[in-house]
C-alpha cells in the first residue's frame, strides 16, 4: 500500500508541472464543452427552433441519421470549445515544435465554426422559406409556379454559402458579382412584368375606395358600354349583351369613366 503510494508520488513528481496544468485545462475544457452543448440544446429547444424548422428537407435528412438540427448545432458548439481547450492545453504543455501550426489553427478555428453555423442556418432557413412559399402558392393551382419555391430556397442557400466562404477566407468576389447580376435581373424582370399590374392595382385602390361606379351601374369605360358586374383590385368586369368585358383598371383610369343615367 505504502509502496504503491510512494511510487505514485515519485511518478507524479517526475511528470512536469505544466503537463498537469495542461491536463486540468483539458478536463475543464471537456466539462465546459459538455455543459455548453446541453445548455445550447435546451436554449434552442426553448426558443421553439424544432417546431419552426419541422418538415424542412435538412431536418428530415438529419432525422434519418438519428439526430436533429438542434443537436448538430449544440454538438458543433461543444466541439468548438473542445478544440479551443485542446489548443490551450497544448500551449500550456509547451509543445514547441508545432507552435506555428497551432497558432494559425487557433486563429482559423472560430471562423470555421462561424462558417459551419452560417451554412447550417442558411440551409435550414432556405428549406423553411421554400416550404412557406410552397404553402402560400398551394391555393393557386398553377404548376408553372412550382419553380418559385426552389428558387427562393437556393437564393438563400447561395447567400449563406457566400457568407460562409467569406468567413473561411475564400475569394468570393466573382460569386458576389454573379449574385448582383442575378438580383438585378430579378428586380428588372419583376418591374417590367408587373408594370401594368402595379398601375392597375393603384387605380383599383382608388376605384374601390371612392367607388365612382358600383356593381349594377351602366357605364362606358375604355370604349365598352355595359353593366358593371364586378370591381376588384386589378380589373373591372363589364357585361353587355352576353359579352363580359374584363378591363384592366389602369385603362379605366386613363380613359375616364362615363356613367350612363336614363
Amino acid at each position, binding site marked *: 500500500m505504502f509502496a504503491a503510494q510512494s511510487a505514485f508520488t515519485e511518478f507524479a513528481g517526475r511528470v512536469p508541472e505544466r503537463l498537469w496544468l495542461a491536463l486540468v485545462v483539458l478536463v475543464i475544457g471537456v466539462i465546459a464543452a459538455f455543459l455548453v452543448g446541453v445548455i445550447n440544446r435546451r436554449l434552442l429547444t426553448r426558443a421553439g427552433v424544432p417546431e419552426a424548422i419541422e418538415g424542412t428537407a435538412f431536418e428530415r435528412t438529419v432525422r434519418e441519421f438519428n439526430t436533429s438540427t438542434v443537436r448538430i448545432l449544440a454538438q458543433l458548439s461543444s466541439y468548438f470549445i473542445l478544440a479551443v481547450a485542446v489548443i490551450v492545453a497544448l500551449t500550456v504543455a509547451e509543445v514547441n515544435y508545432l507552435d506555428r501550426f497551432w497558432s494559425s489553427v487557433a486563429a482559423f478555428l472560430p471562423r470555421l465554426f462561424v462558417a459551419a453555423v452560417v451554412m447550417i442556418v442558411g440551409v435550414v432557413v432556405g428549406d423553411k422559406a421554400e416550404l412557406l412559399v410552397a404553402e402560400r402558392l398551394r391555393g393557386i393551382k398553377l404548376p408553372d409556379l412550382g419553380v418559385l419555391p426552389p428558387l427562393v430556397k437556393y437564393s438563400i442557400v447561395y447567400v449563406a454559402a457566400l457568407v460562409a466562404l467569406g468567413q473561411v477566407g475564400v475569394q468570393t468576389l466573382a460569386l458576389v458579382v454573379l449574385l448582383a447580376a442575378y438580383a438585378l435581373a430579378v428586380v428588372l424582370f419583376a418591374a417590367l412584368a408587373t408594370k401594368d399590374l402595379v398601375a392597375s392595382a393603384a387605380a383599383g385602390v382608388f376605384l*374601390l*375606395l371612392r*367607388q365612382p361606379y*358600383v*356593381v*349594377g351601374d*351602366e357605364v362606358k369605360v375604355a370604349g365598352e358600354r355595359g*353593366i*358593371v*358586374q*364586378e370591381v*376588384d383590385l386589378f380589373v373591372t*368586369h363589364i*357585361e353587355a349583351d352576353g359579352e363580359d368585358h374584363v378591363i384592366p383598371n389602369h385603362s379605366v383610369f386613363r380613359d375616364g369613366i362615363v356613367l350612363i343615367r336614363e
Partner: protein
Amino acid sequence: MASLTDHLSDLVEDADAVLLFSPTSSFHDRFEDGDTEVVVVAPDNDVDADTFVELPLPFDNVKDRIRFGIEGSMDADLVSEGDEVVCIASVFDGGSDAVIRVTVDETVHTGIYDLFVNSRAEPSVIRDVFELAIELGQKGQKGKPVGALFVVGDAGKVMNKSRPLSYNPFEKSHVHVGDPIVNVMVKEFSRLDGAFVVSDSGKIVSAYRYLEPGAEGVDIPKGLGARHMAGGAITRDTNATAIVLSESDGLVRAFKAGELVLEIDPEEY
C-alpha cells in the same frame, strides 16, 4: 348466408363503374387492380385517385350525394346514360357501409352538380353561401329562426332588377362571403327583410334589396312563401343562383333557372 352473398353479387354484377364516396386510401387501393372504372367522390383527393369528383358539401342526404357524384362523373365523361353504376358510400357515421346500384338516366339528373360547378359564380362562392345559410339556419338570430335570401352571381343584372329597401350596409365595404366577420354581420342584417346580393367572386354587393323579377311561369312547390317565389323568379330572369333559408320550416333551398334544385335541412349538418 348463401342467399345474402348471392344477392350482393347480383347487385354488383356487370357494373360499368364504381363510385367510391370518401374512401380510405387502403380501401381505395383494393379497387386499383380491378377492371371496372373507379371514380372517387370526396371533399379532397386524399387518395390521389386519377378520376376524382370534388364534393363541395358533405351532403348528409345520401341520395343527393350519389346524384352529385353521378352528375359529376357524367360531366367528366366517366359514365354515360344507360350505364349501371355501383356506389359504395357511408350512410351512418364511419366507414363505407352501403352498396347501392343506380342506373344512370334522366331521372338522376337534377342539376345538383350544375348548381355548384356550372353556375356563374365560382363553386367555392356557392359553397360558402350554402354554409352561411346552413349556419344561419342552425343558430337563427338570438335563438329565433330567421329567413334569408341570397342571390349569388350576375350581380349587375340582379341590381338592375331590384331596388333598395333601405340604406345598403355593405356600401363601400369589401367583405366576401367566407370571411369570418360575414357570419356575424349577416346574422344581424338578416333581421331586416330583403335579399343579399352576392357577386360572381363572392363579394357581398348589397343587402336589403327588394327583387322585382317577372314571376310569370315560375313553378315552385306550393306552400312556399314570397321569399322563395322572389328567389326562384330572379333566377329565371337572370343567370343568378338563389339560396333561400326558409323562416317557417328552416330548410335551405337552392333555385337555378327558376327551378328548385336542392333542399337541405341545416339541422342534419
